[in-house]
């Protein structure tokens, strides 16, 4: 004791630490390890609205409980954790800024006041190194925090993007606390905060630039459905300037019929979280400022801050797309109609191959209406050809397989025996070559094929007929040649030796003998004439036609002058029309005219005078008809049918000489020129022969 006293007295008077402590301008509280308050600075008591005598000896958390009105408060928990760390780690612990509301004295109205603190807790050890006290020093940063918060709110009001920043900031704050909680590597936490802030800033920049430059409308609304963001794209699509719509309900953008559903949907979502549109892309209609309605596509998302839910919508004007879709639909409809109304059968098939790329079958994909009519196959799509017609010819599969593989289109005609039809087909590959699809246009040509076969048959028959004719003609040729040489020779002998008899044995023959020999000779000459006429007739039929322009008038005049030379004494008037020019074989036409004019000459020979006319007249149908008219012996129309038969005569040889071959020859010649010949006559009043060429 003495020592103590003495030493105390010997040293200068010690300052009154208690008074000093209590008067310190900073905010101090001293706690026992059991967290009982044992000292407090005047400033601390003032700042916390407490009085020293009321709090000394009490537990710190008894004096400073959490604000029961702030469910988010973590003041007690954080402070307790910090103090525990100090006790455990025996080092000072600086806490991040804390919200720690304090109780207002009952006299001042009670309740809690919001306060923010920056606390540091430091251990104090006794001489044995045991923890004796914990100094809890704080700084009241309420004003500073309030200012900061006020700034943030303002920012959120003016620019919702900042709201996100703030949210992020508070999130960062929270995270920082947690980091501090977990470790005291505050630096790292700060660095991370910095990075996060940077990231946020970048993303915010990006968001802003995307928002502003997007063609799509970006519209955000709060949970009341009030528009709070309106980008340039929205302005372009709806026609409203931002200032016209910010603060307006979303319903101004909708046709009336959607408005009720929208309000109900919004309410439902907020109450139950049931989303019908949120999180999806839907097609709706919008209303522009000018009142016009347009189709739009809306992608709606929602996001949440601590206290509020926001909606952001990306809206695209799909008028053009709808129009294009409509146009496409119409065009498809048009082609479908066309496809179905065409007569030609159309189908698309998928060619099926085996492992070695050999086409083995094909499946029908699409068919048009004509398909069934053309094939008789019903409900083809989806079915395979082998299933429909197992005996379908191999070549069909080969052709379609080749087209599917090479892409070379092909046109062909082919038989489908099992369908009992023939087809004219045009096939080409369609779509992706990998899919091996072929489009086929085809026509049932069974009728035509039958016709062709019929024609082939007829042609064959005609060819045979022609060959037979040819052979017959050759035979006739040989026959004529032979006749020409051999049939006349005996006649010459008969005539020659009859004449020899008449000459050499004249004195031994009586009158009737001479008469008989005369008849023999006459018969010979007639027969020779017959042979010649026959040969002429056959020559007319078989000789080659050499067609050229023939002046029939000139030809007739030549013939007439020869006739007149034979009997110049006859009084015959010839009337020959000029310029009768026709295409034909000149030699044959000469023969025909010789016969006709010769007949007229012959059958007028018993009349003292005669008139013979060669002329032309035009029929009502425009055809030119030539005629040779005489006023001679004529004929009985009852026998007109026999006129043109070979060796048919209407007059005896004693009346008029002849063999009955002339008109038959005329008829052949006219027929060979594709014409017609006919005659009219009256006995003793003449005849008229008509012919066309």
């Amino acid at each position, binding site marked *: 004791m003495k020592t103590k006293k003495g030493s105390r007295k010997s040293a200068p008077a010690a300052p009154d630490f208690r008074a000093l402590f209590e008067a310190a301008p900073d905010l101090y509280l001293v706690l026992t390890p059991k967290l009982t308050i044992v000292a407090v600075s005047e400033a601390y008591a003032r700042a916390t609205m407490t009085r020293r005598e009321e709090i000394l000896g009490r537990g710190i958390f008894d004096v400073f409980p959490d604000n029961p009105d702030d469910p988010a408060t973590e003041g007690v928990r954080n402070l307790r954790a910090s103090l525990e760390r100090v006790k455990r780690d025996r080092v000072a612990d600086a806490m991040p800024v804390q919200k720690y509301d304090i109780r207002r004295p009952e006299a001042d109205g009670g309740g809690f006041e919001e306060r923010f603190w920056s606390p540091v807790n430091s251990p104090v050890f006794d001489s044995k190194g045991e923890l004796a006290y914990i100094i809890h020093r704080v700084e009241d940063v309420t004003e500073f925090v309030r200012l900061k918060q006020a700034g943030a709110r303002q920012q959120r009001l003016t620019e919702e993007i900042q709201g996100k920043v703030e949210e992020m900031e508070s999130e960062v704050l929270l995270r920082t606390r947690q980091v501090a909680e977990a470790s005291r590597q505050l630096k790292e936490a700060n660095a991370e905060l910095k990075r996060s802030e940077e990231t946020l800033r970048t993303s915010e920049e990006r968001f802003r630039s995307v928002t502003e430059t997007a063609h799509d409308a970006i519209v955000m609304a709060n949970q009341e459905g009030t528009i709070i963001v309106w980008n340039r794209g929205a302005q372009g699509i709806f026609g409203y300037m931002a200032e016209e719509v910010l603060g307006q309900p979303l319903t101004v953008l909708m046709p009336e019929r959607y408005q009720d559903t929208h309000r109900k949907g919004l309410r439902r979502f907020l109450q139950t979280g049931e989303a019908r549109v949120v999180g999806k892309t839907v097609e709706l209609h919008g209303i522009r400022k000018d009142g016009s309605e347009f189709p739009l596509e809306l992608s709606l998302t929602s996001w949440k801050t601590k206290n509020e839910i926001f909606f952001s919508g990306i809206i695209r004007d799909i008028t053009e797309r709808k129009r294009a879709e409509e146009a496409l639909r119409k065009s498809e409809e048009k082609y479908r109609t066309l496809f179905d109304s065409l007569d030609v059968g159309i189908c698309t098939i998928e060619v099926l191959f085996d492992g070695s790329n050999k086409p083995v079958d094909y499946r029908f994909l699409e068919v048009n209406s004509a398909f069934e009519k053309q094939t008789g196959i019903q409900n083809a799509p989806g079915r395979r050809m082998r299933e429909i017609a197992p005996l379908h010819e191999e070549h069909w599969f080969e052709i379609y397989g080749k087209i599917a593989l090479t892409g070379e289109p092909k046109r062909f005609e082919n038989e489908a025996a099992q369908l009992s039809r023939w087809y004219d087909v045009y096939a080409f590959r369609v779509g992706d070559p990998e899919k091996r699809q072929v489009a086929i246009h085809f026509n049932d040509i069974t009728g035509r094929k039958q016709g062709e076969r019929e024609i082939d048959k007829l042609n064959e028959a005609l060819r045979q007929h022609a060959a037979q004719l040819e052979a017959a003609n050759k035979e006739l040729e040989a026959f004529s040649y032979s006749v020409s*040489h051999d049939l006349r020779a005996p006649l010459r002998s008969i005539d020659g030796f009859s004449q020899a008899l008449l000459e050499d044995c004249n004195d031994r023959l009586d009158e009737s003998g001479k008469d008989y020999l005369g008849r023999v000779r006459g018969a*010979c000459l007639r027969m020779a004439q017959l042979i010649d006429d026959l040969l002429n007739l056959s*020559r007319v039929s078989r000789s080659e036609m050499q067609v050229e322009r023939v002046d029939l008038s000139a030809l007739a005049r030549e013939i007439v002058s020869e006739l007149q030379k034979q009997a110049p004494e006859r009084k015959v008037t010839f009337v020959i029309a000029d310029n009768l020019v026709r295409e034909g074989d000149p030699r044959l036409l000469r023969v025909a005219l010789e016969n006709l004019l010769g007949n007229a000459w012959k059958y007028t020979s018993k009349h003292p005078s005669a008139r013979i006319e060669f002329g032309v007249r035009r029929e009502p149908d425009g055809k030119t008809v030539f005629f040779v008219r005489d006023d001679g012996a004529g004929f009985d129309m009852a026998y007109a049918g026999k006129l043109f038969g070979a060796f048919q005569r209407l007059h005896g040889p004693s009346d008029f000489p002849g063999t009955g071959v002339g008109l038959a020859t005329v008829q052949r010649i006219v027929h060979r020129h594709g014409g017609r010949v006919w005659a009219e006559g009256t006995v003793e009043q003449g005849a008229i022969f008509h012919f066309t060429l």
Partner: protein
Amino acid sequence: MDKKIILLVEDNPDDVELTMRALKKNNIQNEVVVARDGAEALEYLFGEGKYTGRNTSVMPQIVLLDLKLPKVNGLEVLQRLRADSRTRLLPIVILTSSKEEQDLISGYSLGANSYIRKPVDFNQFSEAVRQLGLYWLLLNEPPPVQKASGAKVKV
């Protein structure tokens, strides 16, 4: 001796007889050599076969050639004669029954000098023979006699 021989190529004996009669009737007294077919005619003219050794420098003044002949027909004879220098210029008259166009064309193409169709009427035939003799035996100047062989003349 200026013998103007007539070579008559004719297979029909009746025609030979009638031709001889017509010649005689018209006082044509030239020697007539008759060949019964084409082969015999060629033998005579070229001094071959049964005419081997015949003096081939003596050629007929006129050949009357029928067309339809056994063995070698008239047109073939004509062709052979015109192909040989010794008979190339020999006057040949086709005397036949036919006046088929193909015969006329072939006859003239192969170098016949004339083409006469034998009339059935003997009087007309006789007249034809008369004119023929008059023309070919009296009026017509025959080509010079070919002495050398064909090959030499051609060169």
